[in-house]
């Protein structure tokens, strides 16, 4: 059931829109679309010393997508590319039923999404956009 999907904490996280906007001089930028629903996330990053030093996103998507992007806005800076990739895998696993990774308490907000497989992509889209943006920055 979707009764808990839109809990207040998730709505607040989405509304806070941490990291929303654009960077003045991004090292990498990527646009990712959801083929299922047409949602679109543009993610921009700067990297310093091999880690994300800043990120910004523009989300045309649902509340789940907005909340996931906001979460990355909160905690994404400081991660290295491998950690971002690993985190994406952990989030996907958590959506499939595994325990969420430690250190990201807000990820528990997405637990009610588990039975709604068609919405998993909404949560993962910002992670995919971030990975793609980092990839773009590495290509220089």
């Amino acid at each position, binding site marked *: 059931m979707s*009764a808990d*999907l*839109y809990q207040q904490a998730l709505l607040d996280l989405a509304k806070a829109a941490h990291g929303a906007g654009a960077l003045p001089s991004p090292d990498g930028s990527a646009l990712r679309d959801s083929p299922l*629903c*047409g949602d679109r996330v543009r993610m921009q990053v700067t990297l310093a010393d091999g880690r994300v030093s800043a990120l910004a996103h523009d989300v045309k998507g*649902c*509340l*789940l997508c907005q909340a996931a992007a906001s979460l990355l806005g909160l905690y994404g800076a400081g991660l290295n590319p491998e950690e971002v990739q690993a985190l994406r895998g952990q989030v996907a696993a958590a959506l499939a039923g595994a325990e969420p990774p430690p250190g990201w308490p807000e990820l528990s907000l997405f637990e009610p999404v588990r039975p*709604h497989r068609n919405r998993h992509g909404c949560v993962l889209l910002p992670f995919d956009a971030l990975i793609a943006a980092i990839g773009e920055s590495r290509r220089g």
Partner: protein
Amino acid sequence: MSFHPADWRRHFPLLANHPQLHYLDNAATGQLCETAFDAVTLHELTHRANVLRGTYRLAEQADAAYENARRQAAAYLNAANADEVVFTSGTTASINLLAHAFGDGLRPGDEVVLSLAEHHSNFVPWQMLRERRGVTLRFLPLTEDGRIELSCLEEFITPRCRLVSVTHASNVTGAVTGLAPIVAAARAVGARVLVDGAQMVQHGPVDVAALGADFYAFSGHKVFAPNGIGVLWGRAEALAALPPFLGGGGMIGRVTAEETTYAAPPRRFEAGTPPIAQAVGLGAALDWLRAQPWASIHAHTARLAQRLLEELAVLPGLTFLGPRELRDRLPIVAFNLAGIHPHDACQLLDRHGVAVRGGHHCAQPLMDAFGVPGAVRASLAAYNTDEDVDALLAGLKDALGKLR
């Protein structure tokens, strides 16, 4: 025959078994009617065999059932001959078949005319053809309310045009296409016309003879029949002029090590073992539909659609995609609520037992024309009732309170 939506609802096992379900996603798929279910079951229990191959009695019975389904489909379309009905797996397969069988005969410089209101299934096969053959695609523009613009046909349908492929009715806006001028414009330049009937067929029999088109495509699952079956109707001479698309058993005249000759239509286009039981189910559903009192049904669904249009319009921040009037439109209503994503609205509506679709509806060029990424869509069928509309409206008010 009198019409009562409750009687219809009882004829649909899933709906009869789920009285609290408000199923308003009929543009995506119609529920399976008992007639089709029974026909499929009976066929599989009593006549299951491969077709066009066996000489034993069971195989002959399977042949008869399959060919009877072809006659039933032809009758629903008012086709001149059952051999004008090609069974496919659905509308998408029908259009892809033509994109190959007709499209591969085209050359660079030839033009295929579509509209911006098309489902992806009537976009992508032609874009793929463009990549294969270098043809030019042209897109009929839309009016402000999403109808295909008919005032500029001569500009788009020129002597270079070889095919016009347009929807009979939009799966998003419900707008019914004014086909007569399009067919006339195509005829004037010698172009063929394909009509995507996926949405239209659910709302009563179609008269392809009156439409004047060359090809008509639809899917079984939209007409309360099983998945995995569809129809490509083609005018006899138009089908006869086409080479096969898929090769294999059943579509040949004679095969030698050196060459193959092909069967006449429709079998030329039905390579391999077809979806036999599904065809039988489709035929049964179409026969049942053909006997329904469509004037009464249209009055019923139009009244519900009018209710939707009027009562949605007063919700704060609601905008419609498509015509606001009922003239030349199906009971399909697409809309957006400012500040609420369609997926979030649909998810909350599910809590009210309301099944509606949100997203781009496989019509992203149309969404681009409207300047939105997606929409909520409620699509009505004859079994829908005022209670379904009430539940949708109540659910949307809940969504507004929760999400805005």
